[in-house]
């Protein structure tokens, strides 16, 4: 009996099994629905990204026109918004929007992109509290429930489909009495089970990867082949885990009903219970200080700073001699005084934020350590990373914006301290945000750990299945 015979017979069985065909068809429909949701969301974000880019251009050209008009003898549109003042030119009305383009495979995994901000208006007043802005306008109910995207279908539903296809791969043959017949041929139970499962794996992986590639094709995601490869490898590894688990349980030689109960229980524990338990443990062991403290700290720092402006200015000038050129510390202008206060508040906010981030890192570390218990968490992390909608890419964006805000301040603050006016000639030199997006290789390196662990789990379970199948005999 050859592999071809097994595969051919499996194909015939599949074609004859109407409920199974309906289930597969339904799954394809759901995947299609998931993909269209992702595409709609991607288009929505792209639209916003385009609008922010246009906004940058419009703001810059309006400022240029006004500055040129003033140089030609005109008046500023408002005495409180004179664009020659560095506090105005570098302030909210002259701000530059730093934006993170949607992840290349957003259509496949919406991930954190509906929750985390993907653009920030940067100006001289950008500080730690600026990063607490909300992301996209979204119904909190929708954020709570989550979206129906391909990543969700892969992490939650794909295992169920796999288990439905393979929970009785050997037990049914035993129950029908065909196992003894099959094994009377010169063939090992291990090869029969492997071939039967391989056939199912081909069908399932073919469907999921086909829809994924279609999605990538439709949204230009083919520009990042590394990400597509990572996505595909994750889908395959995750599927293999569930097939291997089904094989192992089948090898134990119990009834189909017993297999079904055990496998559904395993799914429930690994996909639903463990992630929730890990999160709860992280919350209990490393509770986050609430951001509410940040509000109070900011308030207190700014009250304090306003009262001690002169003192703060003197200290600021000591700390930043490079910014102090041309400033007479004894007679600071109003701008310099107010900047010193702003800087003191920023400093205090950075302290509070640093403390918060440290506690948050502890919590995240705990979640990351114990995620190895749940293949679902590992797969989710790798899938979101591949799509460019995971936490890491947003954190990287935020730190680039932080650095950009620093460059922005370095450009405008010396002029504020020196009480100087600016003109249209500085405009070409005003910093512009350029996103240094992560390379595919960075993504692959980051995803290597969860993927390696997932691969390890697959090997472990496969080895167990292999040993178990080796013991299977045709008749008990």
């Amino acid at each position, binding site marked *: 009996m050859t592999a071809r015979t097994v595969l051919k017979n499996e194909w015939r069985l599949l074609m004859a099994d109407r409920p199974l065909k309906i289930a597969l068809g339904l799954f394809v429909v*759901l995947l299609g629905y998931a993909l269209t949701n992702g595409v709609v969301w991607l288009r*929505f974000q792209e*639209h*916003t990204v385009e*609008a922010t880019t246009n*906004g940058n251009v419009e703001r810059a050209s309006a400022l240029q026109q006004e500055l040129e008009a003033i140089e030609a003898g005109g008046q500023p549109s408002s005495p409180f918004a004179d664009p020659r003042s560095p506090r105005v030119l570098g302030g909210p009305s002259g701000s530059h929007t730093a934006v993170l383009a949607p992840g290349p495979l957003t259509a496949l995994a919406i991930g*954190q992109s509906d*929750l985390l901000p993907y653009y920030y208006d940067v100006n001289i007043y950008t500080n730690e509290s600026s990063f*607490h*802005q*909300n*992301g*996209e*306008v*979204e*119904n*909190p*109910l*929708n*954020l*709570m*429930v*989550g979206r*129906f995207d391909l990543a*969700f279908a892969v*992490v*939650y*539903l794909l295992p*169920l489909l796999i288990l*439905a296809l393979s929970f009785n791969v050997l037990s049914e043959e035993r129950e029908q009495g065909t196992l003894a017949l099959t094994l009377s041929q010169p063939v090992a139970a291990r090869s029969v089970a492997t071939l039967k499962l391989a056939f199912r794996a081909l069908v399932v992986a073919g469907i999921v990867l086909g829809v994924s590639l279609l999605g990538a094709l439709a949204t230009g995601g083919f520009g990042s082949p590394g990400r597509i490869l990572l996505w595909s490898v994750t889908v395959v590894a995750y599927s293999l885990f569930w097939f291997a688990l089904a094989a192992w349980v089948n090898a134990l030689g119990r009834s189909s*009903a017993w297999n*079904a*109960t055990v496998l559904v229980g395993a799914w*429930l524990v690994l996909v*639903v*219970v463990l*992630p*929730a*338990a*890990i*999160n*709860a443990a*992280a*919350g*209990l062991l490393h509770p986050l200080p*609430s*951001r*509410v*403290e940040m*509000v109070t700290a900011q*308030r*207190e720092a700014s*009250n304090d700073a306003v009262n001690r402006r002169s003192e703060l200015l003197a200290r600021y000038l000591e700390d930043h001699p490079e910014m102090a050129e041309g400033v007479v510390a004894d007679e600071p202008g109003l701008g310099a005084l107010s900047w010193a206060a702003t800087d003191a508040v920023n400093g205090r906010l950075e302290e509070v934020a640093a403390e918060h981030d440290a506690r*948050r890192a502890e919590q995240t570390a705990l*979640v990351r350590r114990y995620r190895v218990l749940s293949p679902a*968490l590992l797969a*989710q*992390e790798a899938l*979101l990373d591949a799509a460019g909608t995971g*936490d890491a890419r947003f954190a990287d964006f935020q730190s680039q914006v932080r650095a950009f805000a620093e460059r922005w301040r370095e450009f405008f603050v010396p002029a504020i301290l020196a009480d100087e006016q600016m003109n249209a000639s500085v405009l070409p030199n005003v910093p512009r945000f350029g996103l240094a997006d992560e390379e595919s290789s960075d993504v692959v390196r980051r995803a290597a750990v969860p993927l390696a662990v997932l691969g390890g789990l697959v090997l472990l379970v496969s080895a167990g299945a292999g040993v178990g199948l080796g013991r299977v005999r045709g008749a008990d």
Partner: protein
Amino acid sequence: MIHHIVRKEFTDMIRDGRFRWSAILVGSLLLVSLAHGWVQARKASQELTAAQATAREHWETQGEKNPHSAAHYGVYAFKPRLALSFVDEGVDPFTGTSVWLEAHRQNDFLLRPAQDATAAQRIGALTAAQVLQHLVPLLIILLTFGAFAGERERGTLRQLLATGVGWRELALGKALGASGALALLLVPAAVTGAAALVVANPGPTASPLARGAVLAGAYLAYFVVFLALSLAVSARARSSRTALVFLLAVWVVNGLVAPRVAVDLSKRVYATPSAFEFARTVEREMADGVEDIAPPDRDESTERLLAEYGVERVEDLPINAVGVYLQESEEFSNRIFDRNYGALWDAFRRQGILQEALAAAAPSIAVRTLSMGLAGTDVEQHRHFAETAETYRRDLMRQMNGDMTENSLTGDFTYAVGAELWESVPPLEYEAPPLGWVLGNRILSLAVLGAWLAGAVLLASAQVRRAEVA
């Protein structure tokens, strides 16, 4: 006879290893999640109360300044945690917790706890509500999928009916037996929950115990739906395996697929603007006005005051014309905010209603909506607080501008007041909406859950009556 059936079913179940283990798992998850939720909620509640007190202190001790400067300084409002939020945190992690109430602007709620969490933390939260909505139904299915199908397979159904017991009695007995086994798990949880509610500082909720009782009733109805469905399928199915597969499919659609499908569907039917678009629209309308809402004209306002008081020059006005103009700008911007935020909240509400209607395909959506509503953690109650805070802001601004108008003259930039005025502003006190308000919002979910209950029970009795013996 029936008590024999009940006792047999009950004993069967508690002796079954599978039930014992899954019940221990679900029961301990339920208790852990209640305790976890309670600890978190109490901590958050203490923090918010403290922060609100500090915010008030900042307001009162802001020193001497012009009332309009005080309006710009503003005050922070923190959304309180309601008493029952430890059972169901609902949308709370996804709504901001604090809002800055300042002059000229209606700000967004900031600091969403979920933004500090990771993607992994988003796919599974261990709350009592999650356990009740997802794991308990699963347990019910595991307990009862074989109720009839299993007996039929073993051939005991024929013997049983030979004793003269009626189908109806048999079904009722099986349902009661399973309920008894489940009660071993649910009653302690309900008692723990009620005790926690009495012990904890119950936050600003009117009648938390009444809310808790209705909440328990909603979950009970939900469980009966599953019990009845499961018995119906077991009576109808050819084999217990078919029954199990079918019921698991129902469970997956009910808890996993339908809620998310409903989200994306409701987003497509009732689209909301992007944050960027929304901010731009507000900015544009604030600058130019829109439709019949025109920005106030300062010269016109001054002219009107001069005519009203019968004087020639602004200096001769007995009031501060700037204060009047500032208040007119507030009134104008309030109309712009009402228009835009109102439209946004309404879109959210419509999305929510569409999802509630889709509970016709999945009762989990109905019980989820009721659960959040009664716990005080749904979108409507967030809106209720947001609107209370906004009303407070508007009153505060009116009081500040009014003081400036009445007690200073136009052009007097040195006018300053102190703690007396700040303290005369009442602190923000939030009263959560009463139970009737919550239920009034949730009539659709109540109706859908009621329909499920009636439908499932009718289906079960019909299927049991038509069931085959072998």
